[in-house]
């Protein structure tokens, strides 16, 4: 190989090493923000107590232990998992639709979840056989899944053109929002309050069952997303190019939308609609680390986890003693970060 090529090969290896270092850094930040999240809350259970409690060093009092294990830990874990799930879904969506505006929120999936929740909260309509305390989650899951199935069938019926898909997503967004508004109009004072609170998104409904379920979904879906990294990158080279490389785009899109629907639907079922993470996580990751999907996907997931975790901390600390719905906070703390990255025009690593 020529000296030029050799120099470039070495420079490229440095880029790769830097990206790996970035991923490790993101993972460390998410661990730290998770710990801070554990140590934040209205009761006097500080960071060190929480860490000692989790690592089982030293003794916590009965009430402290209960707060840690029944409230703080499930909430903090759920924050991390929701961040991983929504940001991965957003990253995949942006790639398969070739549209930087695509996210579960902008394509109507979260509006559908809200409508499912609204049916349960306002009209008491749920899926038969589902226990009362799961009815809202189950409805949200089913409706966000329906929304993605609609997007899927658009792909099947009208070919894999992305413009139509994005337009249909926007149509879904408006339709479900109108339906939510209709149920709000019909709702009683009390149901209305509950619904509005649900739509804002909150971690206060966390439980170990939800943590376990979402963990299973994330652990299954993320490796499959990672395995599709090369075909996804080929798709970024243009649809004709990818097809001429022998890639079955319809199948790639279908499998990707399947992962997106399960990740989004499960996350939203448990915490309500949280819009910003799915859009901003991938954008921030792309600005930091570039578009090589081997690094871009995990970086998006970790960025999402960090955003959610920090948002959880903020939601507990902005007004002491008040838990602000996390959906509001993600947008408020995410936006400044997002804009500063866009305007500083940081080159890709």
């Amino acid at each position, binding site marked *: 190989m020529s000296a030029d*090529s050799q120099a470039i090969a070495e420079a490229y290896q440095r880029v790769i090493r830097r990206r790996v270092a970035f991923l490790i850094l993101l993972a460390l930040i998410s661990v730290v923000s998770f710990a801070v999240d554990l140590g934040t809350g209205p009761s006097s259970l500080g960071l060190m107590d929480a860490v000692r409690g989790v690592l089982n060093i030293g003794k916590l009092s009965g009430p402290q232990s209960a707060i840690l294990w029944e409230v703080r830990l499930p909430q903090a874990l759920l924050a991390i998992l929701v961040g991983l799930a929504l940001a991965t879904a957003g990253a995949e969506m942006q790639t398969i639709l070739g549209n930087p505006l695509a996210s579960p929120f902008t394509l109507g999936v979260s509006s559908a979840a809200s409508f499912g929740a609204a049916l349960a909260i306002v009209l008491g309509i749920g899926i038969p056989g589902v226990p009362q305390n799961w009815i809202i989650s189950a409805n949200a899951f089913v409706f966000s899944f329906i929304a993605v199935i609609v997007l899927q069938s658009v792909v099947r019926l009208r070919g894999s053109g992305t413009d139509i898909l994005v337009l249909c997503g926007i149509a879904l967004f408006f339709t479900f929002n109108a339906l939510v508004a209709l149920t709000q109009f019909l709702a009683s004072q009390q149901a209305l309050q509950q619904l509005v609170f649900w739509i804002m998104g909150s971690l206060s409904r966390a439980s170990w069952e939800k943590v376990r379920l979402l963990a299973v979904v994330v652990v299954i879906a993320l490796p499959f997303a990672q395995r599709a990294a090369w075909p996804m990158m080929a798709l*970024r*080279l*243009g649809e004709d190019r990818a097809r001429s490389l022998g*890639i079955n785009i319809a199948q790639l899109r279908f499998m990707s939308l399947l992962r997106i629907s399960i990740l989004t639907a499960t996350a939203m079922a448990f915490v309500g609609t949280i819009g910003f993470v799915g859009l901003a996580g991938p954008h921030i990751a792309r600005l930091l680390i570039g578009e090589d999907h081997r690094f871009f996907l995990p970086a998006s997931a970790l960025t999402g986890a960090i955003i959610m975790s920090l948002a959880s901390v903020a939601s507990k600390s902005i007004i002491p003693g008040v838990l602000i719905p996390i959906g509001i906070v993600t947008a408020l703390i995410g936006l400044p970060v997002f804009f500063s990255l866009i305007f500083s025009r940081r080159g890709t690593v």
Partner: protein
Amino acid sequence: MSASDLTIRSLSAGYGARKVLRDLSMPPIPGGKITALVGPNGAGKTTLLRAVAGLVPASGDIRFGALDMLTASASERSRAMAFMPQFLPQRMALSVLESVISALRASPPQIERMDAAAFRDVALETLSGLGIVDLALQPFDKLSGGQRQLASLAQALVRKPRLLLLDEPTSALDLRHQLQVMNIVKTAARGGTAVIAVLHDLQAAARWADSIVVMKSGALYTSGAPADAISATMLSDVYGIDGSVETTSSGDIHIHAGRLA
């Protein structure tokens, strides 16, 4: 017939109900040569190229050597053929090197396993052959039109295809880069690759192609060596212009487009 000849018989292809090509047959396109597809806008040049690449629904018969291109699986096709599209994606932050590596790794054409370093080195070798190794780490977004076209050609050449399909490979290039690209394409052809290129510029087609296929309204008008295919009659029949063609003593062809016929 050699193992790298492309034959096209009674080919019909198009988008939905609109058939752009109807019952098109043409003489075999030989391996080791550059064949230029020329003709006015809408003549079906790109559709023909896309049909061969398997990107447009088509019926009839397209064979590359022993490979039946219309019934072959997409991955079988992709091992033999590489396609360079006319339109390149916008807003893409992959670097040139990454784009070339992914064009190779997304569906490796070779059977033997390669490790990451081997993929990288093959990609770098291709970029070096095109003289753009210095652009390797530039994001695609930041390239000029000509540089993007070179990077796109690299994505096709990296697969070392036996059939290379180029849709207007030089449309965004200045004269120097045109020369550079066509020289590289010529080298690929001398290595045995069958090259089919849609070219708008008749003068360039006459200069670079070993043979020329002239298309008009979805059908074959004529084909042959440049000196035979390009004539004043052809200019008037196919393009609707009054022009003249002269062949110099050195064998160069000069086309003078006169006025609208």
